[in-house]
Structure formats: C-alpha cells, structure tokens
C-alpha cells in the first residue's frame, strides 16, 4: 500500500512570502497588543473604535496563520481575511476622513492605516498579489 504523500514538516512558504508572513505577524502582534490595552483600560472612551480594532487584530492573526498553514481551506481563509482587511482599511479610512467624529480615537485602519505607516493599506494588496501568483500544490 503506497504511503500517503504528505509533505515533510517544513514551512511551506518560500522566498519573498516569508517576508510577507513576517510583516503580517508583526502587524498582528502590534494590533493585538494595542487592542488588548485599549479594551482593558479605556473601553468606555470609544467602544465602537476599540471593538473594530479588536476585530481587525483577530483578522490579522487569522491572515498570518492562513498564509503558512497548508491546505485549500486555509487558502480560502487567507483570501477572505486579506480581502476583508483591504475592505476594512479602505472603508474605515474613507469614513474617518469624511466624518472624523465617527472614530475619535485612532484604530489600526483610521486614516488608511496612517498610525501604522500605511502598512495596513499596502500589506493586503501585496498579500492578494502573492496569493494570486503562488498557486499551492497541495490542494
């Protein structure tokens, strides 16, 4: 009976994808840390904004994991989370410009990711580009 062709336990992401995962991981870490502090110390100041930050942080963590985890399901999760982030930063960015009162406190997506050197804006574009260009072999 032939053995199943499972890949050895090595990271599947190669090359420049490694840098993408690293930046996603750092952003996820920063967003999560900031969100935890905001929610535990001053949630009542801007509950909508801080909840949004928390959702964004969770999505970034999922995106980071989905970029390294093998399989078709994780690939779909990667597409979904990165698209969600891109939509989020564009929508919240636009809203924070048109109506600053809506987000009086900075979230990770305010001003198109201004507080994070616009990385939240550029990163999902790079992520989608990378996903589109790198078909995984383990469907």
């Amino acid at each position, binding site marked *: 009976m032939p053995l199943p062709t499972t890949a050895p336990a090595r*990271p599947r992401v190669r*090359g*420049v994808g*490694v*840098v993408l995962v*690293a*930046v996603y*991981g*750092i952003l996820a*870490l*920063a967003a999560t*840390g*900031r969100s*935890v*502090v*905001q929610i*535990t*110390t*001053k949630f009542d100041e801007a509950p909508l904004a801080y909840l949004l930050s928390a959702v964004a942080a969770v999505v970034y963590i999922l995106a980071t994991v989905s970029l390294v985890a093998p399989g078709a399901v994780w690939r779909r999760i990667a597409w979904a989370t990165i698209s969600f982030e891109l939509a989020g930063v564009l929508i919240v960015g636009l809203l924070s410009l048109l109506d600053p009162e809506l987000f009086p406190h900075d979230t990770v997506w305010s001003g198109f990711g201004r507080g994070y*050197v616009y990385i939240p804006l550029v990163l999902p574009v790079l992520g989608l580009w990378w996903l589109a260009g790198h078909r995984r072999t383990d469907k």
Partner: protein
Amino acid sequence: MIEWFTFAQIAVAVVAGLLCIVLGFAGRAPNDLTMGATALVEVLLIAQLVVAIAAPAFGNTATGSVPEFYTYLVSAMILPIAGGFWALVERTRWSTVVLGVVCLAIAVMLYRMEQIWTVQLG
C-alpha cells in the same frame, strides 16, 4: 525613558534594519553581522526594560498609558527572538530581510514608546 538613550536605540535599530535588508536583498543568508546587529537591538531593549522599571524611582514617570508602553516594549522584545529563531531555521536571503523588517519595526515601536512616555496624556 531617557531621551538620548531612546534615540540612540532608534538609530541602532534603523541602521541594523537597513543593513539587514540591504544584505538580504544582496542575497546573503543570516550571518554573524546581521544576527549580531539584531542581537544588539535586543540587548538594548532589555536595557530599556530595566530603565523603564527603574525610572519612576528617580522621578521619571510616563505621562501616558503605562500598560500601552509595556505592551509595545514586550512585543518589541519578542520580535528579535522570533526573527532570530526563524533565521536559524531558514538560512536564506529572505530570513535576513525579515531580520531587517524586525529591526525597523522595533525602531517604530521605540518611537511610539517615547511618545507614550513623554507626549501622550492619560
């Protein structure tokens, strides 16, 4: 935080970051220079932790959110360890680039920490 020390750290982190990114794109796998530069950034962060803990005893307190400050500091301290570990597992040019990204991220975090300590209120 001590202003001159913070800016010295940021300078070291930026130089280390740019060095690693340039060497990484030049095709170099992580070596003593790039790993050493990242290790130096980490050592300075540990010193920063000691400074931050000791500072209030000398009348040097943060004006801003202390939990937020320590969140940044602890996150920053984790990064070189994760990056260094990755550099040992995958000895490619991209691992070197990752070390550079880590150092630059730490430079940004240090700047934010300085803001929280001296500028931010409440």
